[in-house]
Every structure is written in structure tokens, then in C-alpha cells.
């Protein structure tokens, strides 16, 4: 099987996010980027499929701070090829990212056609679009999102795919390949790769670079202002030891007739 995965970096919210002096973007001084969590699941799902069916997995990402480490980590986990798209503006919105990807993919040697293109189904910085469906539209491929299970049948060029609905209900779909899948969660949690292995890969492996074939289109949504949210409400905090807090909660419950 030939699988292509798209990886993206998003702001790491463990760090405290601040607004830049222009009042409408993130302050970059202490900003750290981290791999988009559902992209990490897409990577894991791709590796699971490779283990089952053989073939190759290519990881592709736009140039970004710390992206090299992410790509090397992917290779250390089992990805065969890592491709970085260079010549890309910083701070592109999701829609622009999707359009850059759609334009450049055909020119990445040996990337397309792929049996499956996997990427995360969402990201916390998707202001103006989602990568997977936008890419799908541009590449004119079938698409399914919120995927949690993929049973591929490469010889029949079809896959049985499970997608999440609500209330714990999931649905099974029949998807022709090639297709784009937006991964919510891989069938197994993302695997661990020892630091030593990643470092070894950093010394031995190469990341291919391909120049972006088009300038990013101008965004069609403008950010007028960004600020930290004022909480709509804030809980009345109950002080004291667990026992004291428990007593006060008990009173509240009694008042509300819940005891």
C-alpha cells in the first residue's frame, strides 16, 4: 500500500498563549509548536496499515519551526520518506495550507497517486477551514472524517472505514481508494519511539525538500482582534480541606434538594 500522511504543527497550549502587540495574532516569543494531535494519530494509523499490508508511508509537512524533529521522529517510528515543503510564508491559515498542499502534491516525486492520504480531522488553529476536506475537494478524491478504524483491501481498492457519530455511536462506511481520510483516533494509541532512535535517524536519514509551487492565496477571512477570553462565568470557589469542602458541597446539595 502507498500511504501519504500530512503533518501540521499547531501552537502548544501547555505554554501560556499571549497576544502579540498588533492585537490580532499570537505573540511568538514564548510560543512553541507541537504536532497536531490528530495528525499524530494519522501517523500511527498509517504505520498500522503498513504493518498489515506492507508498502510505504510518506510523511509530508510544510516548513515550520521544529518540523524537522517531527519528521525525523516519524521516520524513527517507521515512515519511509519525509518530505518538507519549503518556500512557504509563515503563519498561513488552514485554508491557505490546504491550497499550498493541493498545488504542490502532484509535483512531489512519487507521492501521488497514493492509496490513502491520511491526516488529522481537526486542529485547534483551524480558523478558516479543515485541511482534509479542502484537500479532497482540490484533488477530487472521496473523503471521510472522524475516522477511528480502517480496514483496507488494497487489491480491491476499497476500504471499510469506521467513523464516530455522537453518543458513542459509530458508523461503518465503504470507501473507494484512493481516498482522503480525516483521522480522529488511530486504532492504537500513538507508539513510543526511544529518543536514541530519533537521534540516530537524525544522523542517518534525510528529509527531502520540495519548493512550494504556488504562493499561498490571500486569506478570505480577516482577524480583526484577538484577546484572551473573558470567562462567561467563573465558578464560586469553595475553600478549605477536602473534608471542609465536602461539608459545604453537602449543604449546597441539600439546598437544591439533591440529597
Amino acid at each position: 500500500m502507498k500511504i501519504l500522511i500530512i503533518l501540521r504543527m499547531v501552537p502548544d497550549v501547555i505554554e501560556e498563549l499571549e497576544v502579540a502587540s498588533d492585537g490580532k495574532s499570537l505573540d511568538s516569543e514564548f510560543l512553541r509548536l507541537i504536532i497536531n494531535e490528530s495528525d499524530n494519530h494519522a501517523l500511527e494509523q498509517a504505520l498500522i496499515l503498513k504493518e498489515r499490508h506492507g508498502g510505504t508511508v510518506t510523511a509530508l509537512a510544510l516548513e515550520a519551526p521544529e518540523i524537522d524533529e517531527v519528521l525525523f521522529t516519524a521516520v524513527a517510528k517507521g515512515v519511509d520518506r519525509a518530505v518538507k515543503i519549503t518556500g512557504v510564508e509563515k503563519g498561513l491559515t488552514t485554508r491557505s495550507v490546504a491550497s499550498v498542499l493541493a498545488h504542490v502534491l502532484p509535483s512531489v516525486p512519487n507521492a501521488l497517486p497514493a492509496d490513502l492520504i491520511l491526516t488529522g480531522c481537526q486542529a485547534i488553529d483551524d480558523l478558516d477551514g479543515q485541511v482534509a476536506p479542502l484537500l479532497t475537494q482540490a484533488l477530487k478524491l472521496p473523503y471521510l472524517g472522524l475516522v477511528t478504524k480502517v480496514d483496507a483491501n488494497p487489491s480491491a481498492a476499497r476500504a471499510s472505514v469506521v467513523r464516530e457519530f455522537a453518543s458513542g455511536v459509530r458508523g461503518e462506511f465503504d470507501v473507494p481508494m484512493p481516498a482522503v481520510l480525516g483521522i480522529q483516533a488511530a486504532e492504537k494509541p500513538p507508539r513510543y519511539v526511544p529518543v536514541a532512535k530519533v537521534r540516530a535517524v537524525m544522523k542517518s536519514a534525510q528529509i527531502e525538500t520540495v519548493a512550494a509551487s504556488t504562493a499561498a492565496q490571500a486569506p478570505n477571512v480577516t482577524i480583526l482582534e484577538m484577546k484572551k477570553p473573558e470567562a462567561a462565568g467563573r465558578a464560586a470557589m469553595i475553600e478549605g480541606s477536602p473534608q471542609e469542602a465536602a461539608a459545604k458541597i453537602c449543604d449546597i446539595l441539600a439546598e437544591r434538594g439533591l440529597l
Partner: protein
Amino acid sequence: MLNPTTLDYLGIPGWIVLWVAAAAAIFLFVKRVAHLAGILKRARPEKRWDQIPRRLALFVSDVLFQRRLFQERAFGAAHFLIFWCFVFYATGFLWNLIKGLIPALPIPYADGVPWMALPMEILTVLALAGILFSAIRRYIFTPSGLEKTRDATIVLSLISTLLVTFALGEGFKVAAEGHFAWYTPLGNVLGRTLVGMGTTPARAETGFLWMWWAHMMTVLGFLAYLPYSKHAHLLASPFGVFLADLRAGKMPNASEGASKLEDFTWRQLFSALACAECGRCERVCPAYASGFSLSPKTLVHKVKEMVLSPSAAQSPAGSAVAKTEVEAQTKPFVGEAVTPEEIWACTTCMACMERCPVFNEHIPLIVEMRRYLVSQGEMDAAVQETLMNLTRYGNSFGKSARARAKWTEGLGFKVKDARKEPVEYLWFVGDYASFDPRVQEITRTAARVFNEVGLDFGILYDAEQNTGNDARRIGEEGLFDVLKEKNLQAIGKAQFKKVFTTDPHTYQALKHEYAGGDENGGGLNGTPVLHYTEVLDELMERGALSVKEKTSARITYHDPCYLGRYNQVYDAPRRVLRRLGAEVVEMPRNRGNAYCCGAGGGRIWMEDAPGVHERPAESRVKEAAGLPGVDTLVVACPKDLVMFQDAIKTAGLEGNLVVRDMIELVGEAVGLTQRSESYERAEEQKQ
């Protein structure tokens, strides 16, 4: 003079019989030893020939003087006697063998020489008593960890046979020759008894020959049997001691991890051969006592089985075709014989290695196997997450590095930034002390105390990373390297004279596992590394810290594994406590025998196994609470604080026992008015 091998037996000269028997025995012995050596050769290399003087000293203290065996005093005495008896017997045997093989040699037999005969006779009696004691201990009282195996029975019988045949031989010789020498007291007593029973000189001579040959054949038989039995430890253990790991911490050198025989080093496998299955390690192991499936003794036994198993015996090294056959037959040791549960159960407290009389290396075996499991990604999800947090954020809490020094807010004074200004003491705070809400209060108290006594100290703020001690014990050596590099870089930019830490795990890493630690016996490139109890001790010693308000508390102190067993810092904390006025009551398991809280080796991030019926921390707080008149357990490690506080709740000891960090007592003693929250709560709970 009786000369057994000059006589004929069934027409064959004695010395020929002896030559044949000796040749056969020695052949079998050498064949087996060569085979075992061949197996060890398939393992990875390891250098253990350095620091010969130190090794010789260890040989003297622990082989000749049997030091560790005396930790169980009565048995230690018995084993010491049996050992020395054996030394003389072995010497005597070799002597007698040479004389027996070459009767014409103009030397007497060993038992004809006073300085051989007398010790041998005295030791024979003492060793017989020792054997009797050992047999009663093993077969009637059977301490845990000791089994009534066939091997043990054979060996005890063989040794008894040797002792009896020698003793009777002496008696028969005296009766036959009528020579009652001063250096054969046992022989004299037995000889007189025999004569009194009516034994004629001729019969006595026959008796002596029977005993002489029985003794020689038994030894030769033992020699041939030895390397096939658990008593291979007789051969291997002196080497085990001589080739012990002399470094503190004893972490194995960098490797890819071990899942089968060839992945271990020869020294690690050697532990299996040197093991006498005495069970001391199992008796002190907190994981085993709690109900985990790990037993250090069983683990080493499994390694022994792997080393001695048929598939290991098949191919000689160097045969290309056979090599792949062997690989196909060399089943993964890890996962089949040894389960991941066993491997992850270890807290790396080192109680096992501290007790082992032959200096076996249980923890390196476990760490090697953990390295393999880590490479396969086979670990608790929580451990995986912790490792990822350590990699990304430099702390195990998954918090931003910038939040590391948040505890310094609101202290009333600014804690110096050692990166920006020179300080006398660099305080390497550690993860738990910086991030865990319960411990942060302790850290703040510590800062106040140091400030109050005028200590010139600073911290690295957000450049400080977890030292990687636990990552290393979990088996993530690469992560340890990365953390070490980052920390050394940060430390390199700071200016200071000494380093101290409030965290023993950090202490061990900085002192011995970072730059220049192992070889020079400790220190960060020559800079002294101290635990804060050592700093307090020093300050009190030179009068820089005066106790304004002495406490009259009756407390007990828990020795942290990485401060106590790993670094032998037992006295400094006790001196500090006594200077504070506290009455220090020792728990039964104290100092080198202290019982681990269960957090080390990454276990603080792991789930308990289903078989666990009492966690190590619960056992420990019950031990503390059991001391009469003691209601305070003093700790000097943030993980101990957290583990014991939880254990007090789960063991239902709230109101009976509180946990306090030493620095809290120091704080009161120097008159700090601000009390920590946990202290207030502890006081409330007591009432």
C-alpha cells in the same frame, strides 16, 4: 607412614587408580567450565579489570572475611566456618592429590603437617556444627527465599561426607599408627575411641584407606559435579566479588537493551552463575513483599536457566550456519521466561544488591530488559506520557518549563538567578519540589530557611530540567542523555562553588552520573554535590545555623534509597535532627536496610499489578506508626513525602502518624513564623 597410592587395589597400583579418577573428574570439570565460558563469550563485552587494588580489598573483605554474610549473624558465622574449612580442605586436597599421583615426591601428606592438620581438624568440628545448623535452618525453619531443592540436599550431603570421612580418617590413622600428635586433637579423640572399641591396627589401617579413598573420590566427584550444580557458585562467587561494579548507581553502560542471551553482558550473565540462591535479595525486595510477581532471586534463577538451557548449548561461536539455527532457537527471554510485569515492578531501591553476598547485579539485568521494552514501546500509557513530557517539557508533570520557578512567587524575597549572577550554592530543585503542589510548600519553607540563615544560593529557573535519573532507570537511556546535555549546558553558564539539591534522585544523577562522576567518586566535574541535609549539617557544624527553639519531638527518620543505600549518607540527617533536639527513634528497617517507599524506578508513574496487597509505602508507614510514642515520620525526599502522605490515608493511619520533611522542623527551630500549609493540616489531623 601410610601411603595410600603406593598400594595395589584388585591388582592395580593406587596411583594409577587415582590418575584415572582425577583425569576423568578434571576432564568433566574443564569441559563444563569451558562450555559455560563459551556461553559467556557469546554475550556482550564489559570491562571489569580496572582499579585492581580496590578489587583486591573487596576480595579480602567480602570473600575472605565474608562480610555481607554476617548481616544475618548466626548463619554468617556458620558459613564463615564452612568456607574456611573448605579453603583448608581444598588446599589439603590439592596437596594430597599431587602427593597421591606422584608417590615418590619427598613431601608428606597434608595431614602430616601441623599447620595444615591442626586447622583442618578444628575447622572440621566447627564446620560440622555449621552444616548441622544450616541443615536445620533450611529444612526445619525454612526462611523465605530458601528452598529445599535436590541440589541443596546433594551438596549438604557431599560436604558432610567430606567432613566425616576426613574426621574418621584422622581417627583411623591415629589408631593405626599409634601416634597421638598435639596437632591432631580430633584424630586423637577418635583414635582412642576406636582403640577402646577394639579396633586393631590392621583394621584401623584398612579403615583409614577406606576413608582416604572415599574422601578423595568424593572431592573428585564434587569437582566434576560442581559446575553442573548450583554450587558452581563456589567457583564463580569469588570472581563475582572481584569483578563487582565499583561505581555508585551501577547503571549498565549504554546498550540497545536485552531480550535474549546475547544482548546481556558476560558480567550480567555471570551473576546467574555466582548466585547461590540464598534468597537474601528476595527477603528484602519491596516489590516482592507487596505482591508483585517480581522476585530478584527468581529473576536471576531464570537468567541461570537461560544460560544453561539446551538451545544456549548448541552452537559453538563462529559457525555461520549454526548461528542462524541458534538465533531461531534463542527465544526471546523477555516476554516468555520473564514477564513485563516482573520487569516493571522494580523500584531500583538496590536493597537486593546491597544484601547479595556475591555482588550480583539484579538492577542492571532489569534495566537492560527495560531498555528493550522501551524500544518496543511496551510500557504503561502513563509512563509513555511521562517520557514524552520529559522529552518535550523537561519535567514529568507536562507543565511548561516556564512554570518551573512559580513556587518562588510571594516568598518575600527574590531567589537569585544563578545564570545571571554568581552564587555560592547552586540549588538544583528538582521536578517534584518545583511542580507538585504538596511539595511546593516544602520548597518554599526551604527557601525561607536558607534565606534566614544567610545562605548565598541561586537556582537555574526555567533552564533546569529533570536530571533524568528516573528516565534512565525506566530504560530510556537516550532521554537521559538529552536531559543531561541540556542540564550541563545550563549549569555551564552558571557560576557557583557548590551544588545542592533537596531531591535524592537528582543528587545521585548529578553526583555520579553526570560529568566526571563515576571515575572520581562523585562530583560535578570536581564541584561538590551535596544533599540539603549535608548542607544543614555543615551549617550547624560551623555555627552558621543556630537553633532558637529546640523541639522535644520523638520522631523517626526514613532513609531515602538514593541518599542512603546509594550514597551512604546516613549520619548527616540524624545529626541535624539531634541538633534540633529531636529524639530520633530508629525503625527496625533503617540505614542500609531502609524499606523503599515504592516511587523509584519510574514506579511512581505506573499502575499497581493486580496481585499487590500492600504497597511498600503502606508497609513503611505502618512500621513507623508501630514505634511507641512516635507520631512523626521525617523524610528528606519529595517523593517520600508524597508517597507516605498517600499511604497514611490508604492505610487508615490518619491521626496516628504525620509525615514532615526535615526542613519543616528546621524552619520551626530557626524561628520562621510562616508555617507551611501541610504543617497546619498535619497539626489539625493530630487533634
